[in-house]
């Protein structure tokens, strides 16, 4: 017993040390990757056609799921909030409450998480398989700047498309909330909308916008990084897709907390 613990401990420690160095090496590489993005994305030619195409892909890939989730989130959130408000006889506050929850937090977050799953993973898999089958090398040797064509366009596309999708999610979720309020309290559409926009401030809009821009950028850059640097072999493709989702989701939560904190200082 004793001997087994004493031999296993150094192995664990060694594994931890290796993991830790790997983590910092990875961090440094991502840092370089992001720098390279900024260096290459904003010099002509701008690849507008490919960016539009990628935006379209982002939209198509996540539209259905986002519509459905947004609607259900709005509906359920309203429904579940009603009992606690009615205890104080304050169900008339429901639209304001729903609006704050959706516009400040839920819409950007739900959109980003779904896009991380649908868009991030497919970017990871797509670029990963291009790396594994040497298509990226083939672009490189024919002088066609694969980083610009594959990475910059995708990152810009997610950064542009996610805020648009998040806005859309917000309105779909409000629609869900409205349907619930209308059937229960019989509130009219105009009253509902008035109450929705009343509590929202400029800071709310700006911070939501910044949030979804940051989320979009994160999803794009993480997916591209994982795919572009994926290991050789078919296993690498799966790892890239999976890594893209897990890392992006983790970062999205961290960023959410940070941005909410920072936005708090401006209120």
């Amino acid at each position, binding site marked *: 017993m004793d001997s087994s613990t004493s031999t296993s401990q150094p192995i664990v420690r060694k594994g931890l040390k290796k993991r830790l160095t790997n983590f910092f090496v990875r961090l440094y590489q991502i840092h370089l990757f992001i720098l390279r993005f900024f260096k290459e994305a904003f010099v002509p030619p701008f690849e507008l056609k490919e960016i539009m195409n990628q935006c379209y892909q982002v939209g198509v890939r996540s539209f259905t799921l986002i519509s459905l989730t947004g609607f259900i989130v709005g509906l359920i959130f309203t429904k579940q909030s009603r009992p606690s408000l009615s205890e104080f006889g304050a169900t008339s506050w429901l639209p304001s409450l729903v609006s704050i929850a959706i516009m400040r937090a839920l819409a950007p977050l739900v959109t980003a998480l779904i896009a991380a799953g649908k868009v991030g993973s497919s970017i990871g898999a*797509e670029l990963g398989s*291009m790396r594994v*089958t*040497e*298509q990226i*090398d*083939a*672009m*490189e*040797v*024919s*002088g*066609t*700047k694969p980083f610009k*064509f594959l990475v910059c366009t995708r990152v810009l596309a997610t950064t542009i498309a996610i805020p648009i999708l998040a806005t859309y999610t917000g309105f779909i979720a409000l629609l869900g909330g409205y349907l619930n309020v209308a059937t229960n309290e019989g509130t009219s559409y105009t009253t509902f909308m008035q109450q929705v926009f009343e509590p929202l401030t400029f800071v709310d809009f700006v911070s939501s916008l910044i949030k979804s821009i940051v989320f979009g950028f994160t999803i794009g850059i993480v997916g591209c990084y994982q795919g572009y640097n994926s290991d050789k072999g078919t296993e690498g493709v799966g790892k890239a897709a999976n890594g893209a989702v897990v890392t992006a989701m983790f970062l999205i939560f961290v960023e959410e907390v940070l941005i909410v904190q920072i936005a708090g200082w401006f209120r």
Partner: protein
Amino acid sequence: MKKFKPHIDNNNAVIRIRGLKKAFEDYAVLRGIDLDLYQGENLVVLGRSGTGKSVLIKIISGLLKPDEGSVEVLGHELETITEEELQALRIRIGFSFQNSALYDSMTVRKNLEFPLVRNRKNLTRKEIDHSVEEVLDAVGLLKTINQMPAELSGGQRKRIGIARTLILNPEIMLYDEPTAGLDPITCIEINELINEVQERFKTSSIIITHDLTCAKMTGDRIAMLLDGQFQRVGSFDEVFDTNDERVKPFFDYNFIQ
């Protein structure tokens, strides 16, 4: 045997490699490579699996960096080359990948257009179409123009891969195992294509292979990679006129008669 006798300029090396070394972690793959590729010749590089043949041409095309030694391609020393110069140099070098590396989200036409459209900005639609059809015709696959790579056979993919590199009129062609995994008749067709490219486009080529039929049919000169160095360089008969235990089995097992 090779029918076409090219004009080879032995005083003009388009690629000149001296003392090239490359290791991965602690495994030394290339251990002091010296090699000249002369203007107009087909140089065949023979070697067993894992001897670093692919690594060698990846270094020549700037995909991998050497640890030591000098690599001069079309007068440019790769160690000191700038990003822009490398970009321009790569357009003059065609690289046919071991697994073809076709862009599988694009049709054959788009695959061929891609290097052209992105490197030559002011071409008209008509000129692009003309170039695409010309190289497709050269590899005999005009009928596949609207197909996706997934719908092609291995041999067809190889040819499209070669066509895609030809479209930029390269001065140097690097073929990584052009006949690997193909049936004998398709192999011979590919070998003929390689010779045709040499004759028609006046390219200088490095052909990597472990197929001796391919070596014999296409090579003006053979270089044998053994233990990380070129140990035997010369004509096919010169290279195999030896009792070297590392070379003989290569020959014996290839032509079982």
